[in-house]
């Protein structure tokens, strides 16, 4: 199976074809809604239905806390593989600034070989899929999509069943198998947007530095990248930046034959990769 699939680029960056991001915490696709109906009908149980109703109007829902009335964004990330030298400064910065235990590589740099045998580096973070399998399988809506399309985890709600780890096709999710030894110096309240310290027995993953980008700051991994390989952008505003240069996102993606990981799974990632110059992509 290929990790990257080449399809016509115009399909991918045609913004009109991308679905609009709603405000609800967990956007349900039509398929999910059907599944939900089927499951609810099959349950014949008042308890779950009641819970589902209550949950819809939960004022303590994390997505409604501390959100400024800014227009919704459709965050996207682009990783230019031609520039990545595999130094792992992105991983180190992410771990240090999120106070993560060493095995939690929210951005992990894989060293892979293409079909010609040539080594290349591929940083992998959470793809923040528009149709995220992890969100679909979470039994308690602990993992959810925020209004800007970011997939976040509420570690106060996670029961630690790890089905999201099974469902994620990108190995982007990590479990706190033990009490995390790394903690912020000041006692802070962990939130889904800045989940530090991590909670034992729950799942953690890349938050695309929503705590930064929401306020116009750059993600830590991007800041740390000396090669300028990581871009953050907004599909609606159609701009992206790696901190030093700013590009028009749609043409940047199409002109560079940008691809998404495991396109065949239809998860619609928000992270694009720019592969090397004419390399064989089927590793």
């Amino acid at each position: 199976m290929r990790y990257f699939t080449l399809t016509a680029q115009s399909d991918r960056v045609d913004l009109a074809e991308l679905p609009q991001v709603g405000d609800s915490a967990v956007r349900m696709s039509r398929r999910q809604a059907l599944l939900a109906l089927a499951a609810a009908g099959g349950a014949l149980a008042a308890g779950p239905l009641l819970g589902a109703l209550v949950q819809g109007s939960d004022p303590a829902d994390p997505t409604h806390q501390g959100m400024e009335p800014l227009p919704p964004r459709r965050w996207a990330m682009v990783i230019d593989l031609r520039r990545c030298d595999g130094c792992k400064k992105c991983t180190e910065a992410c771990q240090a600034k999120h106070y993560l235990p060493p095995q939690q590589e929210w951005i992990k740099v894989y060293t892979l070989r293409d079909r010609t045998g040539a080594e290349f580096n591929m940083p992998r973070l959470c793809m923040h899929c528009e149709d995220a399998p992890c969100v679909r399988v979470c039994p308690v809506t602990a993992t959810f999509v925020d209004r800007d399309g970011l997939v976040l985890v509420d570690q106060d709600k996670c029961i630690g069943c790890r089905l999201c780890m099974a469902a994620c096709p990108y190995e982007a999710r990590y479990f706190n198998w033990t009490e995390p030894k790394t903690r912020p110096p000041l006692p802070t309240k962990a939130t889904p947007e800045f989940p530090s310290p991590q909670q034992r027995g729950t799942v953690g993953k890349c938050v695309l530095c929503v705590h930064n980008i929401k306020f116009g700051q750059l993600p830590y991994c991007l800041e740390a990248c000396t090669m300028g390989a990581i871009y953050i952008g907004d599909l609606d505003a159609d701009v992206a930046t790696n901190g030093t240069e700013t590009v028009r996102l749609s043409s940047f993606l199409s002109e560079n034959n940008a691809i998404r990981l495991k396109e065949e799974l239809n998860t619609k990632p928000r992270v694009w990769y720019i592969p090397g110059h004419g390399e064989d992509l089927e590793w």
Partner: protein
Amino acid sequence: MVATAAEFGEGAALRAAAFRPVQTPGRWFWPVFAALGALVAVAAAAYGYQLLAGLWVAGYGDAAFYGIYEANLVAFIGVSYGGALVSAVLRLTNARWRAPITRMAEAMALVSLVVGGSFAIIHLGRPERIWQLVTRPQAASPIVWDVIAISTYLAATLIFLYLPLIPDLAIARDRLGPSAGRLRRAFYRVTAVGWTATPAQRQRLNWSVGAIAILIIPLAITVHSVLAWAFSMTSRPGWHSTIFGPYFVIGALYSGVALVIVVVAAFRKAYRLEPYIGLPHFVSLARIMAVLGGVYLYFTFSEMLTTGYVRTREEASIVAVLLEGSFAPAFWGFMIAGILIPIALSLVPATRQVRYLVLAGVLAVVGMWLKRLLITLPTATAPLIGDVWGSVQFTWVAIVITLGATAAIPLGLMIIFRFVPILALDEMMEADSRELPQPVAEQPLGAEGVL
């Protein structure tokens, strides 16, 4: 102290045998009870340690997020299923030989379901939040389907055990006398719900047992399909398979019938039930087991062939580790000792002896547990990007908890049979009476023909 044969009245010997575990369980009972109880207690202590230390003590890691507990969950719930199905199907097909074994099969279904279901809690990182599955369920999640299916099925197995028990509980209420003790007598009085075997009561009971026997079949299929779907609703190689629902169902049935053989043999020996349960019972059960084993073999072959033939990158790596890689010894060991040998022992006339059939059952039960590990481990440790495999550690915590859970099944059955008869008395007497030929010869010959 003990109700005498005279007190038992009709069918005295049978009743005495069925109530022996209740009245005089035997000298071995308390030592065995203590040993099994100790295993369960040690497992509980290990679980306490896991709660304090975190799930890593069970051998997990980020590159091995599922492992032994998930295999246990599937394996223990699976055997439950076999118990319920054997009893239900044999009831519905009116197989009279079933009567002496249904009680044990139904009790085993209940106990192993409780034990298996507990692994759904044991494997959680935050078990104290499990109530959220009820208060904030996300209906599209297979785990929510699991919760609904397993709890419904638990209720059904309880009813399925209880309904046919009512006439037997009434016998206990009427015949056991003060020697049974105050607690038991109160228990029998309440649970017998005023059964006096009137025709109306009997008709209602027969209807209800028939209804639950029919209901429990789709329920049991649902439970195990949903359990399979928790795996196959992911895109992981080895799990994302359309065959998984029926594949799990057949595996559950196969291991379940095998455990019925083992349980029946163990309690037959322990409580001297040889007059009521003989070789024909084991031969019949073993034949059912052999057929199911054959179907499981076919499913396994079908899965390996379709994925191994097309050889997409990720699927091929799973097939490769099973057939010729690090899991190959376990896989081929299962295929031979877990399926082929049990089938052979069950069908070959030369091994048509209780001990060989029990051996076949043990091999099938252990083999199917191993097979569940072979379902969870390769996929949970396979890389989705790159080629670095993870690995599961077999830690003492996971092993002790697994052993404790295994011990909990005989322990639970021993406790149940301290309170209720181990044989389905009423059904057995009914089956006997139906088999008795009517005294045709005593009717005046041609008495009606004259008219």
